[in-house]
């Protein structure tokens, strides 16, 4: 069993802007171990989200090698990437991105349903995880009936419920006030310790950086500093 959940070797990402090729990532080498609570930080446009998207198999690297939980994602088909996301990776987005027509319970259940988990097991696990994030009382509410902080907790529960190896969180606190953001980070830290799930954030929020155990600073598409606390 490899101990590294993420291995990036010389990852380059180039975008075409009209006739000009823009390098968003300039040869990233990075290793994240299982169970880490790490953040990629840097100013806007530094390449944080691009890097997170490539790790999450949402985007392709132009060059280089990306390995997630021992699987080289460069070689995977679209279906295999969808499977990898479904079973190994959880996502938390800045704008929560819950399915508006589903209740909190159903939003969390959706991932397990896609995995084909039987109904009885789904109900048990969703109830457990909603209790862990303190949302048992709100399980029948739709996203429009919840605050931003509550929605983001549902999004975290959705990411955690299938017990993935890795959770990628893109600016998870950006739309939250400081108190709610802090509570969310503490909750995610607790889930990281209890379930041994690796968390990797992309952020420029000071509070997220303070809570993270490792900070990977990106500037202009390259790693400028990698510090462990």
């Amino acid at each position: 069993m490899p101990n590294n959940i993420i291995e990036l070797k010389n990852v380059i990402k180039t975008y075409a802007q009209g006739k000009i090729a823009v390098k968003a990532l300039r040869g990233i080498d990075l290793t994240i171990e299982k169970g880490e609570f790490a953040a990629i930080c840097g100013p806007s446009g530094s390449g944080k989200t691009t890097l997170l998207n490539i790790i999450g198999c949402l985007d392709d690297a132009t060059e280089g090698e990306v390995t997630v939980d021992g699987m080289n994602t460069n070689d995977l088909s679209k279906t295999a990437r969808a499977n990898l996301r479904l079973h190994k990776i959880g996502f938390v987005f800045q704008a929560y991105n819950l399915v508006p027509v589903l209740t909190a319970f159903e939003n969390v259940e959706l991932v397990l349903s896609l995995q084909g988990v039987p109904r009885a097991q789904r109900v048990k696990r969703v109830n457990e995880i909603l209790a862990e994030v303190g949302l048992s009382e709100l399980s029948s509410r739709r996203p429009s009936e919840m605050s931003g902080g509550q929605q983001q907790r549902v999004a975290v529960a959705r990411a955690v419920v299938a017990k993935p190896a890795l959770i990628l969180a893109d600016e998870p606190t950006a739309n939250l006030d400081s108190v709610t953001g802090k509570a969310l980070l503490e909750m995610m830290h607790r889930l990281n310790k209890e379930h041994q799930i690796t968390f990797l954030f992309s952020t420029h929020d000071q509070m997220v950086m303070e809570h993270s155990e490792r900070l990977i600073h990106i500037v202009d598409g390259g790693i400028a500093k990698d510090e462990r606390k």
Partner: protein
Amino acid sequence: MLLIKMALRNLWRRKFRTVITVSAIGFSYGLLIFFVQFQTGGKEQMANTGIRMQAGHVVIQATGYNVDKELEKSIKNPGAIDKTIHSSDKKAKIAWRLFTTGSLRSSDGSVLLDRLVGAQFDREKNVSDFPSKMQTGTFLTGGPDEIVIGAAAAKLLKAEVGSKVQLSISDIDGSIVRVLLRIKGIYKTGGASVDRGYALMNISRLQELLKMPGEVSQIAIFTDLHSSKGLAKELRRRLRGQQTEVLHWQQALPTLHQLLLVDTASMYIFLFIIFFIVAAGILNSVLMSVLERTREFGVLKALGMRPGKILQLIMSEAFLMGLFAIIVGLAVGLTMSYIVSIYGLDPADLAGGEQGMEAAGVPLTEKLYPKITAFSCVWSSLFVMILTLISALPPSLRAAKILPVKAIRE
């Protein structure tokens, strides 16, 4: 199950658009069901009227008579053919007819007869519409000097029931025969040519006048619309080599048949318009929905939902929309058909006048009724559903192919 729940809620999420789309498709489809059922019923009524007044479901004539209506082209042994018919279809009703042309003259006027029918009074009253259309007097009763004429002819002759009229015809040798007949009854079908140029008298008397004892121009067979083709085929096989031609009503009444085909073609044009409305409505609704939810599909894909599941989700929404439209359409269409099947629609009202319509020589004087069949509901519902799913496919494929990284950014 979660997909169906999502699909239903997605439809409900855009209530106004869903209600407008479902109503537009449902009402169009309802009109289509009514139109198809009314037209099917009307066409069957027209065919049956034409068959009862001018031919039969199947007719047997001497070879070539259908093209060249000469007296010489007659059937000499109708009795033997009757037996063959009955051995093929025991329930079939048969009537012998002898046709010629001539003129009627009274002291006050005259009229040309396009068709003088020598009819078997006892058999004819069981198969023909004429006995039920008598305005005054009665239908033939078997008397040698009886004649039944139309209301328009009676007016031209200034004659009434009991009046004597002189019939002039040419016998088989070409000699002019004149005979005095008494008007037994006057019918009114509402068809101008039938009411003026048709007359009926007893066949045995006409055979005698034409010097054609025992001969007939036509043996008309009455069965039902749907089994008549099979009977015609069977009789054609059994009467091979007997100098006869066996014609299905569509061959015996080609003008009427052509008219009904044109009617069917107009129905297909109407169908095409309705189906275009359905396709455009569904395509518009589903495409709008997909474009509005690009980000949502991106998120679902990021969570690991495969393209096939996204396709399934949107197709489920289209399926449900089609299903609701079909339910609305069936309710609207069947209600309309049911109401019209009780009261009927008068062709005179449809024509915008008091006179009945006449189509291909067939008077349309009776009210028209729709024919409500499960088949017409099933095939049209299936067609609407298939069309719905086909129309929803391009936007569904578009959603299934969305790149999550781009979609989430929207």
